Each structure stands twice: as C-alpha cells, then as structure tokens.
C-alpha cells in the first residue's frame, strides 16, 4: 500500500552511523574489558569519546531531528503522548517521540558518564589506567573505576529497556522503528522541515571530536 507514497527523510546519515557504531562498540568495549585487553579497550573508549563529542555537538548544530532543543520542547507533550499511547492511539513522530526523547537523554547521559569516568579510571593494581588518570590520585582513580563499573550496569539496563520499547512499538503499535534507523526514511509521515547534512555543520562536529581526542592525548 505504501509503494506509491513519497519517502520522507527523518534521520540524517551521521545520526544513523553514530547509532549503529555504538551498537558495535559498546559490546566490544565490554568484551575487551572482560578479557583484560586494556589497550584495545582504551582505543575503543577513545573512539567512543570522539563519537559522543560529535553527537553532542550535532545535537546543537546538526539536523532538526538530531537537535536537543526541539527534543526537549517535545517533552512538554509527554503527558498527552502517553495518554494517547495507553488509549491505543499511536501516531509516528517526525524524529524522536516525547518518550524517545527520554531514552536519548538517558542513553547519551549514561554513555557520557561511562566515557568520562573511564578516562580517569585506575585498576585495583595500579597497572592499567585511563589516559587522564595521571591527573588524579590512585584512590580517586579507584573510586571513578567503581562508578565506571556501576554505571555500566545501568547502561545495560537502559539498553534493555530501549530494545524492549522498540519491540513494543513494533508488535503493539505496528510501528517499525528499526528500518528508518537504517534507511533514514519513512513513508507514513509529513515532514515539517528537510533533513540535509550541511558540510560546514559537519566540519564543526568533526572539529570538536578531534579537538577532544587531541586534548585527552596531550593532557594524559
């Protein structure tokens, strides 16, 4: 039925690339830590740091559906959105739904805490440490490593919640959220604005990410 309908772009390619890179890197980070492959853990962690810096910058300068301010404004309609959802009236959103916005805040927040504490973490033997651990005392580094460990559990819980929510939308509300996150397109929606990646905005995001990584390697 949708064959003849026009496709509307809702997610730009940087948002999708960021999302799927995280899907790959988070399990890899867990695995390298579990196996004690700390050199790889640190390399991947620094990659995650760069990706997060890009995404946080993109939330300010990027495309409309990636931006934080419109997302936060959406939160005002969360009560009515939830009321409709419970009543079984679900309309696909252009970008993040009010509920999806909460998920973005939680997951980006937890990832930021994870990366930041990791930069300063020290292992129990004082043998391995994050690139900025030289700036803190052994005890402080140990405390941050404890937070790093606890926060990872929280991250796993919220990732599980995120995946469960996607399953509920798929089976209960007949709304496939995965396909648009791959293709960037939806056919069942009116776009209030166009989603186009501008080169200069992209340059700002990449510059902030690279400056962050450079700063960490210089300071550490």
């Amino acid at each position: 039925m949708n064959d003849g309908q026009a496709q509307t772009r809702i997610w730009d390619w940087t948002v999708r690339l960021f999302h799927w890179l995280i899907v790959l890197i988070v399990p890899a980070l867990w695995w390298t830590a579990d196996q004690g492959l700390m050199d790889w853990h640190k390399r991947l962690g620094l990659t995650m740091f760069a990706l997060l810096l890009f995404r946080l910058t993109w939330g300010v300068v990027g495309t409309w559906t990636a931006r934080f301010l419109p997302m936060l404004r959406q939160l005002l309609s969360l009560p009515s959105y939830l009321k409709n959802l419970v009543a079984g009236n679900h309309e696909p959103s252009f970008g993040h739904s009010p509920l999806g916005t909460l998920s973005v805040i939680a997951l980006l927040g937890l990832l930021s805490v994870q990366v930041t504490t990791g930069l300063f973490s020290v292992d129990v033997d004082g043998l391995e440490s994050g690139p900025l651990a030289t700036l803190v005392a052994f005890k402080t580094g140990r405390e941050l490593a404890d937070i790093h460990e606890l926060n990872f559990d929280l991250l796993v819980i919220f990732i599980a919640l995120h995946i469960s929510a996607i399953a509920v939308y798929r089976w209960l509300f007949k709304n496939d959220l995965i396909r648009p996150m791959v293709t960037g397109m939806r056919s069942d929606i009116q776009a209030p604005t166009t989603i186009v990646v501008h080169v200069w905005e992209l340059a700002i995001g990449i510059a902030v990410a690279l400056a962050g990584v450079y700063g960490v390697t210089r300071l550490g």
Partner: protein
Amino acid sequence: MKFPRVNIAVPAIATVLMLSACGETGGSDATSDATSEAASAPLPNGMTVQQQIEARQGQLEKVGEAFKAISDQLKADSPDIAIIQEAAAAVPEATQDMADWWPEGSGPESGVETDALPSIWENMADFQEKVGNMKDAAAQLNVAAQSGDVVAVGEAFKATGGTCKACHDDYRLDD
C-alpha cells in the same frame, strides 16, 4: 464465601510475616556474632583475622599507589626519574614480609570481607612461589629505577605487572 476467607487469610499472612521477620533477625544476629568472633580470633602471629586482612590490604594498596606513580611517569613525555625511583623503592619495602600475609585462617571462611580465594590455602606452595616471583621482579624494577634507565624501567614494570596478574588470576576474586 469470600469474607471468611479474608478473615482467615489476614491473620495467617500476618503470622507468617511476623515469623519470617523473627527468623530473619535471629538468623542475621547469629551470623554476625559468628563472624565477629572469627574476625577477632587471634592468629598464631598475634594479630586478629580482621587486623591481618586489613594489614595486607593496606600494604597492597601502597603497591598499587606506587605502580600508578610509575605508570603515570612512563606515560609522560618526559618522565620524572626521581618519582619513579621513590615509587620503585617503596614496593620491595612494602612487600618485605609478604610471604607471611596469608596465614591459615585468614581466608574468606573467617567471614571477614576479603577477595582472597580459598584456593590460596589449597595451593600454598604455588602461591608462595608466585609471591617470590613478584618480589624478585619488584627488586629488578628497583634496580632498573635506581640506574636511571627509563627504558629498562618500562620493561621491568611490565614484567612486575605480569607477576601480579599471574597470582591475581588464580587466587583473587574477580574484580
């Protein structure tokens, strides 16, 4: 039919809850009594189990602190050899009597919180060999540090770290 059921159910549930609450309190009291008894039991060396465990944890923390100081310098563009020397000298000093830190009875069976695994006391000869390896490596590290050769310190540091891990993998609770 419903009312009598509720009337029976409420006191029944209340009784069960009270009984289980009593059981829990009694149980935890008994456990903590037994724990504190074992913790304050004197070891042949005169220390209590609690004191012994805290003492070795404190010494190993000093080692961790010294290792971090060395690792920080090895990461730096221009390592401060004086800091490395001080830290490298602190390790043999802190681990001088390390062979005596795990007397019989100072394991997790004492009830005192410790990451030391019971396998230490089941494989004491191997454990002591590993303690010896660590002390030898730490002595080498100190020699390298006092010679002022940062490259040699880097190699000796890796070797020493390896001896720590060799023991922790088998005899310490996973961090």
